[in-house]
Structure formats: structure tokens, C-alpha cells
């Protein structure tokens, strides 16, 4: 009996040590490495000025603005489409071959490598639709990439609304749309928001889909229309850490810091939304 107990102790200790050494420590080191090195280099000028002297001096304002524009644009396209698709899957679709095909498509969309979305955006939006290398092409590409995450989050949120809500609504004579609009969606909004913010934070950090659809190598001004190119933080970090020789490392760290700060801020928002609404939940 005692040997069995000892065996358990050894096994659990090994598992714990493994998690500590190979998961916890690397994650903390990575985050601290960027925060400590980048935090030192971020100044007010860095955040609010145009890059100068081939990006080796000045700030990254256009890249920050570009990333914010891309996030907003992505939300504008992905949110309505994703929510409507999820509503279809949860509230309207019957369990048949066609529905299974849609679900399989969503799974596959989420597994397609981001570089393929870049290629797709390049042929469809940049080439076929003649949008050129522009904000419009880039946000549409990012939106399609974010679609599966928005759909999955919305689906879960809709499914967590109790079935009884729908039954009561139907029994009072409401149509399907009225039921969805007044008895299901209002209660699913917190879950939808949480998932959406998370998917947008992922889109904010993506580089491959915007490589050929919107990202500008060096464009020290703010965009003028949706047909303009923009700089974006992730692409900027890629450029200055691989393509520009003799780049001051300080600026790369600072760019990484700003990118991580934006992504983490969005993640925190999502966590707070979740906690806030969970408290208000009354059923």
C-alpha cells in the first residue's frame, strides 16, 4: 500500500515539476523579457511620432494607428457575419447533411494556415476585386480569418441560453425571429462580446494575412482612405528585426512591447467582460 502511495507522490511531483519548468517558467520569461526590455525603451515620443531616418529613429505612430484601424475594420465585417452564421446554426438549422457541411466548413476555416488567407486575400480582394493593396483588402482578409472564432464563441453563447426561454416565447405566439431577437440574443451578448474581443486580439497580432494585402514597409504618414496602405505593428516588428540592417535593438523591443500591450489589453477587456456579466446573470 505504501509503495502505491509513494508511486503517486513521485508521479505527481514529476508532472508538477514538468509543468513548472517547461510551461510556467518559459511563459513568464518570455513576457518579462519583452516587458522589461521594451518598457525601458517606450517613450511618449516613440508612441506619438512618425518614424524617421529609415525607421531607425522617431516613433511608430503610423503602425499603431494602422493596427487600430485594422482591428476596427475586421470587427465591422466579422461581427455581423459571424453572429448571423451562428444564429443560423443554433436557432434555424435542422440537423441534416447541409448543416453538418457548414459546421465542417467552420472547423476547416479555423484550421487553414494564416498565410493561405493572405494568398486568398491577394487573389480575391487585391486582384479580382481590384481593391489593390489597401485597408479594405486587409480587413476583409482578417475578417474571414476571424470568422470561425466569432462563430464558435457566438454558438457557445447562444447554446448557453436555457431552452425554456425559447419555449416560453414560442408558446406566447412569437415567431422564430422574434424569439431570437428578444429572448435569446440579449442574454447571449456577454458571451458573444467575450469571444469576439479575443478573436480580434488574435487578428491584431497576425502578420501573414496582411503581408500582401495591406501592410506597408515604410509609410511615415497616416492613411487617407480605405484604399490606402497602412503600416501595422506586427509587420513593422518583422521588418525592423529582419529586413533593416543595423536597427537599434531598443526600437524592436519597444515595438514588441506596444504590440503585446495592445493584445493583452484586449484580452483583459474580455476577461473583465466575462466576470462582469457572470455576476449579473440571474438564471
Amino acid at each position, binding site marked *: 500500500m505504501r509503495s*502505491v*502511495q509513494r*508511486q*503517486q507522490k513521485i*508521479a*505527481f511531483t514529476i*508532472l508538477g515539476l*514538468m*509543468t513548472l519548468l517547461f*510551461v*510556467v517558467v518559459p511563459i*513568464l520569461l*518570455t*513576457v518579462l*523579457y519583452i516587458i522589461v526590455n521594451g518598457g525601458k525603451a517606450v517613450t511618449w515620443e516613440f508612441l506619438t511620432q512618425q518614424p524617421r531616418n529609415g525607421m531607425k529613429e522617431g516613433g511608430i505612430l503610423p503602425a499603431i494607428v494602422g493596427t487600430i484601424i485594422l482591428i476596427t475594420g475586421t470587427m465591422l465585417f466579422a461581427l455581423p*457575419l459571424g453572429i*448571423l*452564421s451562428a*444564429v*443560423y446554426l443554433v436557432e*434555424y438549422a435542422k440537423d441534416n447533411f447541409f448543416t453538418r*457541411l*457548414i459546421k465542417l*466548413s*467552420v*472547423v*476547416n*476555416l479555423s*484550421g*487553414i*494556415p494564416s*498565410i*493561405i*488567407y*493572405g*494568398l*486568398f486575400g*491577394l*487573389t*480575391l480582394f487585391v*486582384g*479580382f476585386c481590384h481593391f489593390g493593396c489597401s485597408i479594405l483588402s486587409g480587413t476583409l482578409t482578417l475578417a474571414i480569418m476571424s*470568422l470561425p472564432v466569432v*462563430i464558435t464563441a457566438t454558438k457557445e453563447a447562444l447554446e448557453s441560453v436555457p431552452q425554456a426561454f425559447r419555449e416560453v416565447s414560442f408558446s406566447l405566439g412569437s*415567431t422564430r*425571429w*422574434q424569439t431570437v431577437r428578444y429572448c435569446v440574443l440579449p442574454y447571449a451578448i456577454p458571451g458573444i462580446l467575450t469571444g469576439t474581443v479575443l478573436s480580434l486580439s488574435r487578428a*491584431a*497580432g*497576425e*502578420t501573414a494575412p496582411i*503581408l*500582401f494585402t495591406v501592410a506597408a514597409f515604410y509609410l511615415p504618414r497616416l492613411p487617407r482612405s480605405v484604399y490606402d496602405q497602412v503600416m501595422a505593428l*506586427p509587420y513593422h*516588428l*518583422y521588418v525592423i*528585426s529582419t529586413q533593416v540592417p543595423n536597427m537599434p535593438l531598443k526600437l524592436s523591443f519597444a515595438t*514588441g512591447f506596444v504590440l503585446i500591450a495592445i*493584445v493583452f489589453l484586449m*484580452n483583459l477587456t474580455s476577461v473583465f467582460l466575462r466576470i462582469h456579466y457572470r455576476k449579473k446573470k440571474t438564471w
Partner: protein
Amino acid sequence: MHRKFSEFLIEGCIRLSGVLCIGFVVLIFLFLLKDALSLFGVYSPAKFLFGTQWLPVSKPAQFGIIPLVVGSLYVTVGAILICVPIGVGAAMFIGEVAPQSLKNILKSLVEILAAIPSVVLGFIGIVWLGPFLKTTFHLGTGMCGLTGSLLLAFMALPTIISISEDALAGVPRAYREAAFGLGATRWQTLWRILLPAASSGIIAGVMLGIGRVIGETMVVMMVTGNAPVIPSSILEPLRTLTATVASEMGEAVSGSEHYFALFAVGLILFIITFIINLIADMSLRKARK
């Protein structure tokens, strides 16, 4: 009447959105296929699939994808060998061993890792991990397959951990109760009952992890040295399928042979990830039953 019409309209939109999801997958496939077929009009598919030289700018240009496939294979296998044991072990610890408070902290940490943009990890690979590996193992260069494998393994951890943990948690209560009732310890239950019972879910997690690793672009482009030659070991510079598309598309002239070749590489990638996702989906479905 007015209400009926608006309702008809909105329900139309809802149905259309559902159909669009299928539409996008089909469109992506067709657009890749169209441009890939343009290549096969002028370049033999056999030479493309089995050629051992990728020389897009030499004359005549060579578009053999074997070096790229081998590069992807090296990096992916390396990453999976590293991250599967760690990921499944961590999932066992987080899900079944750690007390509730520790469990919440660990889960948030894993979420933080999932949120870090890949380009930031690539940057860390360039400034720290690559040079570190170079000096520690006396390599010719730190920008090699191993650096890529390590970073990709790190990136795939959140996927594998969270799905494996869900799979372990999803094992019916009765299994644990029966095991405890027979006098098994928590470790024996975890190792001999829960792990086998959760195996389909864990396999699904591993497959999705592989999908992520094969499809990851920025990290491998930044740290694996970008050399499109068949590497003799994982300690040499190499280049993956994804990195080739990302690094060469910028300079390929639209409509040229090179441009179409990159779409053909994209098509191969699409097919590989499609199959992996299909397997993952099937094992997830099996796990739910």
C-alpha cells in the same frame, strides 16, 4: 405586412451567412486551385511534387518542393516530439492534480501564452534563443530548424493543453468512482483509466497542434535561416512551405511562373491542413460519444 417583410429579410440574411461559411472554404480552394493549375500548364506536376531543387529565379527556374516539404517535416516532427509529452503532462497536472486556485492561475498563464503574437516569439528567437542555442551547442548558426521547432512547440502548447484537459474532464464521473471504489489511487486512476478513456480527445488536441505548427509562418520565416535546400539535420538552416510563400510572394511578378508556383505550394498546404483538421474533427466527434 411590414413586419413580415422585415422578418423575411433578416431571416434571408441569416441563412445567407450560414451558406457563406461553406462558400469561403470553397472559394479559397478554387482560387488556389485556379492559380496552381496555371503552373501545371507550363511546369510538370511530377517535377513540382518530386523535384529536389527550389530555384525560382535561376534560368530555367526549378520548382521542386521536396526541400520545402522536408523542411516543414523536420520542424514539425521536432516540435511535436517536444510539445506532446509536455502538453499532455501539463494538462494532466492542471486538470487532475493541481488544487483549484493553482489551476486557475495556470490556466490564465496558458491563455497569456496563446495571446502572444507569433511575430514576437520570432523576434525572441532572433535576439535570444538562436544565439543561446548557437553558443550552448556550438552550432554553425543559431538560425536553424531546432530553433524553429522549439518556438513552434511552445506555440502549440496552449492548443494541446486546453483540448487535452477538456478531454480528461469530459470522462464520465462513474469511471473515477468505480476506480476509487476498487481502491485505486488518484495516480492509478489518472494513468490507467482517465488517460486511455480520454485518448480520442487528446489525439484531437495533438492533431490540431500539428495543424498549427505546419501552418505557422512568421516564426519559421524569422528563425529557421531561410535556406530552401534539403537539410541533412535539424541543426541546419532550412525553409518550410509556409515561409517560402511568405518570403517570396513579395518579389514574384503577378502572373509569372514563380507566382503560380507559390500558389501551388499554398494548395499543397491547404490540402495537408484540410486532412489534419478532418482527422481532428473525427476524433473529437468520437470523443463526444
